[in-house]
């Protein structure tokens, strides 16, 4: 990993004494059932990059939402230039000079690129009308300054993901921001684009802007950050100058124990081939995906966000149609035209987006669990409540679900328990193949270990598992084999012999 040169440390410490432009003091945020943030304090200093490190669900995005006025803290204060302030609406935050580039590009497909950049603060001309000429000109300049070659009059919906991301960055730069929050800005960028982004960050720094940089990639943290703050379970575990720590220190702070301890050991005894996928292709999302999967195997899919992994899994599960290629289950070719077909063929999918796709939050636990198995708990189409509760109980007890009662709405459970409900729902269908898409995203550390142990147990019982994960320790710790995807294609397949973190990252980023 890249370390700062010793001579760079001294001036950096001097700058650190300069007053913070934006500061959080003992901020607490509580959601029903979860304490998302607990007494968090954070300083952002002009001309410095602070890296926010933590696993998914550690509270990073909640911090971003509080800094940008989407959420209001339940306790604690926000200081701007040392003055206590509140951000009751997002506009207040942006007037104080805070701007954010968000993880999912939250932009407007139907508006032009220039309008996306200047929505809410467009240049005005005569009669207070928006001055299109100046707006397009300014957009052109900003886009040019970040090396993006995009026509500002184009509609946003005609752009690809990487370009949309550049528009989001341009939007953040269009306001006269003093604090720039970058939420995983490199997630879907190519190697060259990432280098350009680093240059951009450097130039923002030299302009005296404070930057909050959220990233999962340690190499870039060590490359561009001056300070770090580590989050775990809504609390700050450690902070300081990046030059004082190593990546191993950061990982330890993030997960709270050594990486090797987290993952369950298991006997790998692979059974016969259960799934064969050959040349699976979609017009725009992925192409030429081929692999086999054995009983009792855990096959990892690694790649950057937006590499097409989830898209492929959803095609395999019958959500996305218009695909070509063949799927064989136990040597029999199958046609999967809907998720119902997939479930009938023994393929089930635990999606990444739990709130929208995985669970039905406004229905009680037991109804969520029995939803794909309604046939099992009814006679002639009539529901049998006793059978229904028994099924729910059977499968949740194995997962050690914690809940007040089975008619609690799933939305009131913690992330980890919601995930247990979704997994229980699928196990109740007695599947052959289970696809887990980011299975521990937004899951607290305790439940995470439980989910991992349970995965190992299922594999030992002969279930075939496909795991999509962006967390390198998880991929390394759980998988028998790993397929790496980039820009919709399989780039390599790694097994025990060549499964190294560096190899994974290199292939995923295309270096």
């Amino acid at each position, binding site marked *: 990993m890249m370390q700062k040169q010793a001579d760079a440390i001294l001036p950096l410490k001097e700058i650190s004494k300069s007053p913070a432009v934006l500061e959080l003091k003992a901020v607490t945020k509580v959601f029903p059932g979860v304490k998302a943030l607990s007494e968090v304090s954070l300083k952002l200093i002009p001309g410095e990059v602070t890296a926010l490190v933590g696993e998914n669900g550690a509270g990073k995005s909640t911090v971003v939402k509080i800094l940008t006025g989407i959420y209001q803290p339940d306790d604690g204060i926000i200081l701007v230039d040392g003055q206590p302030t509140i951000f009751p609406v997002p506009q207040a935050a942006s007037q104080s000079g805070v701007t954010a580039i968000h993880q999912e590009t939250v932009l407007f497909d139907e508006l032009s690129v220039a309008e996306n950049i200047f929505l809410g603060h467009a240049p005005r001309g005569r009669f207070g009308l928006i001055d299109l000429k100046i707006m397009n000109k300014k957009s052109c300049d900003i886009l040019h300054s970040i090396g993006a070659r995009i026509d500002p009059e184009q509609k946003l919906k005609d752009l690809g993901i990487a370009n949309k991301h550049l528009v989001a960055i341009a939007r953040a730069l269009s306001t006269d921001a003093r604090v720039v929050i970058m939420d995983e800005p490199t997630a879907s960028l190519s190697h060259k684009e990432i280098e350009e982004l680093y240059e951009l960050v450097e130039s923002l720094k030299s302009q005296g802007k404070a930057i909050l940089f959220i990233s999962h990639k340690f190499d870039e943290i060590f490359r561009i950050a001056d300070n770090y703050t580590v989050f775990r379970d809504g609390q700050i575990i450690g902070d300081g100058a990046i030059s004082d720590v190593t990546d191993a220190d950061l990982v330890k702070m993030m997960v709270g124990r050594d990486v090797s301890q987290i993952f369950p050991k298991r006997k790998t005894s692979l059974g016969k081939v259960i799934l064969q996928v050959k040349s699976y292709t979609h017009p725009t999302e992925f192409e030429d995906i081929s692999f086999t999967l054995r009983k009792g195997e855990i096959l990892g899919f690694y790649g950057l966000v937006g590499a097409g992994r989830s898209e492929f899994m959803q095609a395999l599960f019958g959500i996305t149609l218009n695909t070509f290629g063949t799927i064989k289950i136990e040597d029999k070719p199958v046609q999967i035209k*809907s*998720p119902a077909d997939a479930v009938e063929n023994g393929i089930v999918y635990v999606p990444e987006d739990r709130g929208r796709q995985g669970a*039905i939050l406004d229905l009680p636990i037991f109804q969520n669990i029995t*939803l794909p198995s*309604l046939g099992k708990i009814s006679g002639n*189409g009539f529901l049998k409540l006793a059978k229904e509760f028994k099924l729910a109980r059977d499968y949740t007890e194995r997962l050690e679900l914690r809940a007040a009662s089975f008619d609690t709405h799933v939305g009131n459970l913690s992330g980890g328990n919601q995930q247990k409900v979704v997994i229980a729902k699928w196990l109740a269908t007695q599947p052959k193949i289970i696809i887990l898409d980011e299975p521990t995203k937004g899951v607290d550390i305790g439940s995470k270990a439980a989910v991992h142990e349970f995965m190992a147990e299922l594999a030992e019982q002969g279930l075939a598992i496909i795991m999509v994960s962006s967390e390198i320790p998880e991929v390394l710790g759980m998988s028998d084999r790993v397929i790496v995807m980039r820009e919709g294609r399989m780039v390599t397949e790694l097994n025990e012999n060549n499964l190294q973190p560096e190899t994974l990252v290199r292939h995923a980023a295309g270096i």
Partner: protein
Amino acid sequence: MTISSRTIPDRLRSPLEQRLKSWEALLLLVAICIFAANSFASPYFLNAWNLSDATFNFTEKAMIAFAMALLIISGEIDLSVASIIALSSTAMGAAVQMGMGTPILVLIGLGVGLLCGSFNGLLVTRMGLPSIVVTIGTMSLFRGISFIVLGDQAYRGYPSDFSWFGQGYVWWVISFEFVLFMVIAAIYFVLLHKTNFGRAVYAIGNNPTGALFSGIRVQRIKFILFILTGLMSGIAAICLTARLGSTRPSIATGWELEVVTMVVLGGISILGGSGTIVGVIIAAFVMGLVTFGLGLLNVPGIVMSIVIGALLIGVIALPRLWSVWRAR
């Protein structure tokens, strides 16, 4: 046992307070108040025959409302129901001109409803079009066909045994329509609250993506719901035509909005996912009682619509106003 301390109970007993605060309870209270007010206001109200007459104000609309309730719970809507009545009635009228008997008329009435429903269903589920616009279109189309066939004419001369569906009494003051209404209410209650199908409907309405990702055949279920709504409109067409004894293309104009009002008043969320059949039954009585009571007081029909409209907004707005006010 040590395990039992960790075992999750099936249900927490729902507190009485919560049950009393339910929408259905509130609505029942409204219904009782209206009933009481009506009996004070008019001496003619508490009369078995008058009350029986009053049921005709809502039975036909309520039959459609039950199917509409399921459709709205699933997140769709059908604004063409009144036009289906018109087309179905026109088809029956045309059959009468060709000398068809009552059994054939009933079959035609049901068949046209079924066809119209499946046409809506196909457009929404096969082609993925938004139901609110599709059914505004078919609303014009179906009634438009009636206008093309009938113009400013009317079909009459329905056989006398056919009129029993709209004017017959099963026992004493209990009309055939009222019995049919009760039977349909019971069927829909069981369908929505006691079967797999009903469970899937709730799941779809709460989160269509989640339901799809859970292996529910979302489009198939929605298609069936459109067919059911068409079928119910066909049944309502038979009853209404039999009751009026004639068909004009303007028959049942504006009913779609009254049916939707009834459903929403019954506590079905227009956004989908929640509500009960019991609520719709009570809402049907509330609307029937209001219309009938004001009618006895010689209040014109158009003024009653103010009351219905205010009721619709009021019952939804008041609890929200209350919670906004309490949050201050």
